[in-house]
């Protein structure tokens, strides 16, 4: 199924949207990813990822109310859809399936 694959970065964004629950908008997602992964991301990358996820139906969005701090501009909030949740579950279970097949033996030295 073309277009419904989850890229590594997309998965990260999707997870963050899920984790932030009702507070997921561009800057918040970016900050969260920065905090959790220590990796520096540009805001434009977050926006593209969110938009792709929305196209794929993994998240849906709504505009919030007017705010004070950003020149009165509204924020676009994203929430996880059930389809998105399922995609995360699938990714997770695939990973666990493979992970569990790693034989339990000592590694390395």
């Amino acid at each position, binding site marked *: 199924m073309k277009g419904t694959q989850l890229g590594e970065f997309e998965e990260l964004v999707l997870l963050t949207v899920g984790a932030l629950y009702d507070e997921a*908008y*561009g*800057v918040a997602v970016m900050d969260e990813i920065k905090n959790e992964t220590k990796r520096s991301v*540009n*805001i*434009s*990358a977050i*926006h*593209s990822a969110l*938009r792709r996820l929305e196209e794929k139906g993994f998240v849906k969005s709504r*505009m919030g109310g007017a*705010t004070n*701090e*950003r*020149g009165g*501009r*509204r*924020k*676009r909030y994203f929430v996880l859809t059930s389809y998105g949740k399922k995609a995360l579950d699938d990714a997770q279970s695939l990973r666990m399936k493979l992970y569990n097949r790693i034989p339990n033996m000592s590694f390395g030295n």
Partner: protein
Amino acid sequence: MQSEKHITPPRWADRFLAFYCREEFLEEIAGDTHELFEVRLEHSGRRIASLLFIWDVFRFFRWSNLKSTDRSNINQLIMVKNNFKIATRSLIKHKFYTGINLLGISLGIACFILTYLYVQHELSYDEFHTKKDRLYRVWVHEFDEGDEYFEGVVPMVLIDHMENDFPEIDHAAQMNAVLGRYKTPDGTQLTTMIDMVGVDFLQMFDFPLIAGSLEGVLDSPEDIVLTESEAIRRLGTTDVIGKTIQYELRGKNTEFVVSGLVNDVPDNSSLEFVALISDTNKKKLVHEQSLTSWFNFSTELYVLLNEENNVPALEEKFTGMVKTGMGEDYEEGTFIVYLQPLTDMYFNKQIAGDTPTGDINTVRILGLVGFVILLLAGINFVNLSVGQSMSRAKEVGVRKVMGAFKRQLTYQFLTESVLLTLVAAVLGLVISYLLLPTFNDFSGKSLELTFDVPLIQALVFSVLFTGVLSGLYPAFVLSSFNPSKVLKGAFTGRKGKNGLAYSLIVVQYVAAIFFVSTAVIMKNQMQYISKLDMGFNKEAKVHFTLPAAKSETNRMGARMEANEQQAKVFLSELQQLTSIEKMTASNNYFGDRGWVRLGYEDRQEKEHFFHYNHVDENFLDVFDIEVIQGQGFKEATPHLRETGLVVNEAFIKEHGIENPIGHKLDGEKFPDHQIIGVVKDFNFASLREEITPLILSMNAEMVFKGIYSIEVNQALKSTVLAKVDLNSIDKLKEEIGAIWEERFAEPFELGFLDAKIERLYEQEKRNDAMVSLIALLAVIIASLGLLGLVALTVQNKFKEIGIRKVLGASAFSIIKMLNKTFLGPIAIALLLSLPLTWFAMQSWLDNFAYHININPVHFLVAGAVIFITTLVVASYQSVRAAVTNPVDTLRYE
């Protein structure tokens, strides 16, 4: 301080965002970026926050965020897409013509790219210096005894005057080359030129230091500045500052401390160096006399003028400098100092210096040739489009009926030609990449195909030029067809005899025949030269040069004698080798850099010049040089060997000597001497020059005592020349090598004389090869054009051929009929190119004192080559047409 609220991100960035961003995303994107700006403002201050804001705005500039273009634009875009699609289809449908066009144009573009790179490289010499407008080489216009000299190499005494006497001169630097020897770790001895310069040198020219500091970099005699490659060659690293390095200079081992490192000198620099040392060494390395004499021309001298840059005013002041400097030696108007712009040096062959020179005519001609070839390729396209207009006419008619404007059709055809050219450009790039090594061989350059400005210029120009120019005719003529006529069927073909197509074919063939006959004439001349009887026998000769022998005095005659003695001993050891038939040793030999030229003054104070070679008794015998009067050295008595001169016919002729034997030269200072023999003229220089007066003697000291001017082109060394049995050459090489190693530390190098002589004509050979390649290209392109045109003619005459055959025409008569249509243009082209070639080649041949005469045969050969290729190319199509069964062609009527 302002309150935070009033600090906003840069307005222009904000506006730019609003300009490109889609409405629906603008609010969230602007919101997020502004929010980030505010956060960063608190943390890192206004500057950083603003910069990051701008960065973010640019990062949001992506396809998905862009406003879609408005409606009219979309319409245009669709038309472009449509044009593109139609163009692709039409190109694919006419595979044959597309192939011909593609091949022709890509060859044209490849040729253009190569010549453009060459021309660009030649024209870029010394242009990289930022101060080039104020940089000059100092040169001297010298008059002496009715001769004038343009000296790019000037006396070393000048620099002090330049530096101190003239406020107009900001900097002056001289460049003196000193030979440096060094041993590699494995013991082989190598040499490199080391240039002695002042620190000003690095301030004047753009050879920036990449390590070390300009301050005092060449102040002390131990300082040395290396180029990167010399640093790696000698020290194995570029981390060299402070390391020591040794060179043997003027016989003395000298240690230097690396004080600076510069990039390698670019290819397009007239000034070349690998290592620079301080001119504080000059007292040590240069003779006292050279430093103070006004008549010892020994250094390149460059100056940087101040901002005023007033050359004439400064040159005027130089007269005073010369006058006071020379004192009583000064003679009005014999020694004039001038300035030559640095960028003028490369193409100026008149002022002789030590820097490389290029030939502006070669550059112009090559540039023109590249352009002509491109034009030829463009012509093919036009011709084929004209030819195809029959089939395209209906398409145009239908389109017009459906409501297409003329302009739209024009665009459609232009799209087609530009698309084709773009594909051809890619192909041309590949072809030029493949041809580059060959081209470099021919041109003697080391050009590279890198994506930089010149290459992109060449590509863009060639695509636009061929694309638009070759598309113009079809675009404007085809699109103006009258639809009602075309569709009614009244438009049955081109009216008349296809004037345009055929005149263009003539143009192509003029060029093709020109190049082919040029190549034929050049080949003929080169053959003539290599077969010409030079007056001596060069067959089966080998040569090797002995190292310079130690001489007690520095006088040239004495040095030649010392070399001679050393050679004599060496020759006697070679006696035992049976595969050497006969041998000799002499100072100059055939194919070297030019024989010694001497001058003496006769009693009427008139100057006479002659070439001179110091030989042994076997010289004439080894080369089978014919003695026509008197005797050679071999038969002479010991006394005559000591005092005798052998001269050539040219010498007698110039001096008008009637009874040469026993004649004495009219110079006062010559000791006891006489002419003992006259030899037939032989070519001791290249065949570009006439044979000039020559004197041979076994006693050099005697000749040198009487002369007062000396011109030497190479180090004084003896060369052994031997006639050998070529069958056992490998064994002989080893045997001589073994004897050599016992005596000399230098490597032994044996060469073949005929190969050495051939090398005199390297430049001509290169030109010849280059012209052959160009001729080949021109013939290919012209043939391609003709092939296409014949194919179209055949196609248009398909029915006619069918009817003729039904009425009883033979296949042969049909081939004849078809071939006749294009043989006419070729004949015209042959006639037109004749005077062109004649003129061009006559001036080329004038470079040679010994040359062939242009002969109708040359043109016959060239004509035949063209004629046969054409016939072969055309016959493929005409034969196919002639043998077709008329039933197939007439069935549909």
